[in-house]
C-alpha cells in the first residue's frame, strides 16, 4: 500500500491506496490504519483500496469549521464525486461505519455495495440503556478489554481502542497521530455520543446490497446491537466473526477479508 495526498474541497487528504480490482473506499474507525496493516494487503489481492484518513485524523487537515459528522458525510460525498468510478463499494468500520451508513442513506446512487464492520451511529435500546461504550469517559484498560477478544493482539499501527495502554511501544510520530485522531473524534462525536438519533428512521432508504460483519466478542457495541442494525437495513446480511472484538479487521484479518471478498464476488 502507498500513502498518497489528495486535495478535496480545501482538505489536504492523506489516502492509503493499493491493490487491484474493483474500487473499495474504506473509512476507518477511532484510529487510522497503518499502510502495512495485514488486512489491507489481503484485501488488496481482490480490490483496489482507497482509504482516506478523516479530516483531522492521521495526516489529513481539518478546516476550522469542520466539527460535526454532517461535515464529514458531505465531505465524503465530494470525495466520491472526485473519484473516476461511477460506483464504488464502501466499507466503514466502527465510527467509519456510521459515516458509511449516512452516506448510503444520502448518496446511495454512487454505491455498488455497502459493508459495515461493527458500526456505531444509531440508538437502539431505551433511554437508560447505553448502546455504545463512551470512548472518552471510559478507562483505557476497560476500553481495551471491551474492544478486543484478545487485547494482547494490539500492536503498533493497529492498536484500535485502548491504544493508550501502549505508550511504551509507540514512536513520537505515532503518539501525535493518535492524539490528533482522538481530538478529532471527540470533536465530531462527543454528543450525542457516537450516534445520530434520527438515523434509525432513515435506514430503510439504503437500497444497495449490504453486509454487516460483527466481532462476536465486541463489547463496545454488542452483536445484539449489530443484529438490530441489520434488521433496519432492507435485505442486509449479518455475519459474526469469531474471536474478534470491535476491530475484526485488525484482530482477525483473514476471516474478515474472506467474508468481504465473498460478498464482493456476489456470493
Amino acid at each position, binding site marked *: 500500500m502507498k500513502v498518497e495526498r489528495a486535495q478535496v474541497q480545501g482538505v489536504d487528504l492523506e489516502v492509503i491506496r493499493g491493490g487491484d480490482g474493483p474500487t473499495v473506499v474504506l473509512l476507518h474507525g477511532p484510529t487510522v490504519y497503518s499502510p502495512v496493516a495485514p488486512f489491507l494487503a489481503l484485501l488488496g489481492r481482490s480490490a483496489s483500496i482507497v482509504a482516506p484518513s478523516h479530516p483531522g485524523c492521521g495526516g489529513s487537515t481539518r478546516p476550522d469549521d469542520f466539527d460535526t459528522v454532517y461535515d464529514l458525510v458531505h465531505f465524503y460525498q465530494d470525495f466520491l464525486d472526485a473519484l473516476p468510478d461511477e460506483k464504488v463499494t464502501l466499507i466503514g468500520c466502527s465510527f467509519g461505519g456510521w459515516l458509511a451508513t449516512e452516506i448510503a442513506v444520502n448518496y446511495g446512487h454512487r454505491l455498488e455495495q455497502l459493508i459495515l464492520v461493527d458500526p456505531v451511529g444509531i440508538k437502539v435500546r431505551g433511554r437508560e440503556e447505553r448502546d455504545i461504550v463512551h470512548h472518552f469517559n471510559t478507562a483505557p484498560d476497560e476500553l481495551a478489554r471491551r474492544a478486543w477478544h484478545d487485547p494482547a493482539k494490539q500492536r503498533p499501527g493497529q492498536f484500535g481502542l485502548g491504544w493508550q495502554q501502549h505508550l511504551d511501544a509507540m514512536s513520537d510520530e505515532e503518539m501525535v497521530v493518535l*492524539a490528533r485522531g482522538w481530538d478529532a473524534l471527540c470533536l465530531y462525536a462527543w454528543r450525542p455520543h457516537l450516534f445520530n438519533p434520527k438515523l434509525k428512521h432513515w435506514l430503510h432508504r439504503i437500497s444497495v446490497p449490504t453486509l454487516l460483519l460483527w466481532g462476536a466478542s465486541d463489547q463496545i457495541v454488542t452483536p445484539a446491537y449489530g443484529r438490530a442494525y441489520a434488521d433496519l437495513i432492507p435485505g442486509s446480511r449479518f455475519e459474526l466473526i469469531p474471536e474478534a472484538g470491535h476491530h475484526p479487521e485488525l484482530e482477525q484479518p483473514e476471516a474478515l477479508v474472506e467474508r468481504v471478498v465473498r460478498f464482493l464476488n456476489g456470493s
Partner: protein
Amino acid sequence: MDLWSHCENPYPFVPNEVLQAADSVRAALPNRYCDPMIASRLFDEIFDEHALCDDLGINIVTTEHHAGINNLCGANPLVTAIVARITKKAKILSLGTLVTVRQDPVRVAEEYATLDVISKGRLQIGFVKSGGTEMASGDANPVRLRQREWEAIDLIEKALTSHDGPFSWEGQFFTHPHVNIWPRPWQQPRPDFWAATSDLPTCAELGRRGMVNTLLFGGYDKTKLAFDAYRRARSEAGLPPPGEDRFAYLGFCYVGDTDEEALRIGQKIAWFVTVSLKASPQYNKFLPGQIAPEMVPKAWRSGTGRAPTDLRAESLVTQGQMFAGNPDTVARQIKEFRRRVGGLGGLIMMTRQGLVTHAEAEKSYRLAAAEVLPQLQDLDRLEPVEQPDPLVAASP
C-alpha cells in the same frame, strides 16, 4: 491588599479503603458515600465561616466542582446566593459557575445579575476553564473548551450590559434569538470580571480586557510569568499599566499563634493533593483537546506532573504555594510573594481544606483579619520590573 477566604466544602469522610479502591474520586465515585446529614452540617459550618469573614473584613470566594469528594458546591449560583443574603459588606467572588459546562450563558447572566442585586453590588464574576472530570460530569466536549469559554463570556457580558430590549446571538457555540435579562445588574456597567488561569495567551487576553487575573497554586515563577504576560499585552496594546487590583493569587493559608502550630495544621491541607485529586487517566492525561498533539509525546512520556510532589507544609511555603505561620510570618510571606510577582491586589486564602476543622479555620480567619490584614495595607509602591516577553521566555 484584600484578603479573601475560599472554601471548596470538601468531604473528607469517605472510608480510605473505598477511596483507595476507586479509580477516580471525582465524577465516578457513587454518591451513596456522601451522607446528606454530614453534608448539611458542612454547609452550616461553611456558611458560618462566610458570615464570620464578612464581620472580620475578609472577602469571600465561592467555587464550583462537580461529583467529587473535593467540593460539594456543584451548584455555585445557589451557594453564592445564600452568601449574598447572609453577608452585609464583603465582596463576593463567584469563581465561578463553570460556563464551559453550562448549556445557556444567558441563564448564567440572569443568575449573576440577580446575585448582584441581592448583594447590592458586592458580586464579582469569575471564570474558570474547567476540564478533567468536569467534562464527564457535565457532559461537555473538552475539545475547543477555551473558544467556547470566551464566547460564553462575551455573551454573558453583552447580556449584563444591554438594556434596550432583546438582542440576538448566533455564535459558533451558542445561539439565542431573544436575550433580555431581568433584573439588570446593580453595578454599572457590570460586576468586575475575573479569570483563573496561568495559560499565557489567555493571561494576555485578560490583560487586554482588563479582567482580574488570578492563579491557583502557581508558585512564584509561574505566577510572575503569567502576570508579566498580562502587563506586556496591555503595554503592546497601548493600554495603561494595570493596577495591582488586577492581580490575585490563591494559595493554601493557615495563620496560627505560632509558626509551629500553623505548619502542623497546614499539613492537614495536603489531603487536597494526596487524596482529592485522584482521577482516572481518561479524565486528565488522555482528555482530548487539552494540549497540542505535537506536544503530546513529551507530556505523555513524562506523566502529567502538575501536582506538587513534596507536600510537606514547609516545602509548600518555600514554593510559594502555602502561606503558614504566626501572623507576622504570614504577612511577611505574602509581602514577599507580592514583591516577587511584581504586584498583587488580592490574596485568596484556601484555609478550610482537607482535614482542617471548622474551629481551626475560624481561628485562622480571626488572626488573619486582626493581625495580617492590617500589615497588608498602604504597602510601598513596587519598583517597575523588567518585562521580558513571557511568550518567548516560556518557549523551550
